[in-house]
């Protein structure tokens, strides 16, 4: 997953957020490749957040006419960007085709090995052709919808409101659903040999990779790991300090009731930091807990054979360690978030008085 501008849009509020969403919607009706979209919206979003923090009105950034601004913003999308975007869409269809045809091919080979009188060029089984048609049709419907929306926006000289955009998204979702699953699966039976789909999709992906090596390498440098994304999401919350500040006030209220002196900000933050650091030791809990649970169920269970016992232990430990790993990573993200909040409060102790 790349570090997209979309992770930071919730830093916008009020007119800035609504304006940004309108600009995003307008630009979504134009074909541009993801890299160009990321570049433009990153810059625009940074400008919006900076202006918002300075207390400026959004009209100072985009002018009085948002539609004029959007036209200018999308005015120089070049043909190369449109072509790249087209091939990116085909790549998604090729990936689905590759996965489906690989699975179908495996089933076909197993059937042949089990004695079924089938050829590897068989087109029986899952209606992959219909499914691919559905995905290809989405691309065309998307294009038609975009042209209609652009025509409506030009005629009405307005960008749709939040409600109108939601209605549009719901309508387009149902249109895609109908085309892919109902029509693609049920009405169109396109008899294409599975092996042919597998070969074509593989060739396409190889050629795509060769021509887009540099872009793919660039995306790797912009990658954001899932757990960093979780930590980032937690840090994006504007109320991140409030729970710590509430805790500070609650502790001091109790101390006053007991006739004790209030804790200073520094004392409280030191104590908080120590308790957060102490939770790092709970990694032993995540390592030992699955063993204890498995041992408990092992003791109360009755196995018919050693193989059953081994399979049981293997599956139990596998599932539990997967769950524990997920919870451990979430805890690490929470610890990272707390330590960052504590450091921020140390730098800006005036937040305690807010």
């Amino acid at each position, binding site marked *: 997953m790349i570090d997209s501008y979309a992770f930071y849009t919730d830093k916008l509020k009020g007119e800035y957020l609504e304006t940004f969403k309108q600009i995003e919607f307008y630009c979504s009706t134009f074909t541009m490749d993801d890299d160009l979209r990321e570049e433009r919206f990153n810059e625009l979003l*940074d400008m919006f957040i900076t202006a918002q923090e300075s207390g400026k009105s959004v009209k100072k950034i985009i002018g009085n006419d948002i539609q004029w601004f959007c036209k200018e913003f999308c005015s*120089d999308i070049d043909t190369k960007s449109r072509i790249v975007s087209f091939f990116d869409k085909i790549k998604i269809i090729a990936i689905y085709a590759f996965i489906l045809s690989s699975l179908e091919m495996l089933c076909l080979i197993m059937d042949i090995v089990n004695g079924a009188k089938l050829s590897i060029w068989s087109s029986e089984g899952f209606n992959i052709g219909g499914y691919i048609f559905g995905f290809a049709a989405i691309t065309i419907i998307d294009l038609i919808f975009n042209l209609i929306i652009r025509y409506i926006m030009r005629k009405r000289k307005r960008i749709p409101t939040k409600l109108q955009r939601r209605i549009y998204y719901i309508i387009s979702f149902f249109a895609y659903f109908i085309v892919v699953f109902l029509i693609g699966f049920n009405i169109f039976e396109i008899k294409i040999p599975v092996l042919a789909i597998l070969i074509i999709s593989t060739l396409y992906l190889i050629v795509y990779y060769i021509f887009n090596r540099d872009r793919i390498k660039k995306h790797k440098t912009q990658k954001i790991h899932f757990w960093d994304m979780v930590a980032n999401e937690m840090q994006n919350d504007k109320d991140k300090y409030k729970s710590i500040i509430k805790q500070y006030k609650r502790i001091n209220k109790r101390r006053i009731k007991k006739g004790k002196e209030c804790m200073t900000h520094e004392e409280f933050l030191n104590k908080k930091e120590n308790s957060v650091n102490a939770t790092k030791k709970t990694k032993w809990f995540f390592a030992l807990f699955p063993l204890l649970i498995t041992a408990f169920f092992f003791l109360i269970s009755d196995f018919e054979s050693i193989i059953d016992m081994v399979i049981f232990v293997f599956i139990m430990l596998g599932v539990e360690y997967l769950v524990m790993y997920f919870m451990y990573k979430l805890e690490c993200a929470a610890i990272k978030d707390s330590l960052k909040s504590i450091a921020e409060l140390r730098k800006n102790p005036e937040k305690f008085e807010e």
Partner: protein
Amino acid sequence: MDNSQMLKGVLEGCILSIIVKRETYGYEILTKLEEAGFENIGEGTLYPVLTRLEKKGYILCRKEKSPFGPIRKYYSASDDGIRHFKLFKKSYYEITDKAMKILGNEEK
């Protein structure tokens, strides 16, 4: 009166002037233009000018995560850009001098 054509002529030079002075980014450029009295120069007008300057090789761009999270583009002038700016300034002063000779003689 619609000043957009006149503005298009000088805006590129003004933006290049800001970038030539030191490395800067989009919001800072907009702020400096606003301080100079250029109102309603939004991202929509700024962005095509910056893209054009970059394509011509007059400005260089590096990307860095901004303090707020999104990737920010920082612009600096290339050697070609500095040369082009000097030529622009020379042409601009020549044209305005000539224009002032005519317009200065007209009754207000």
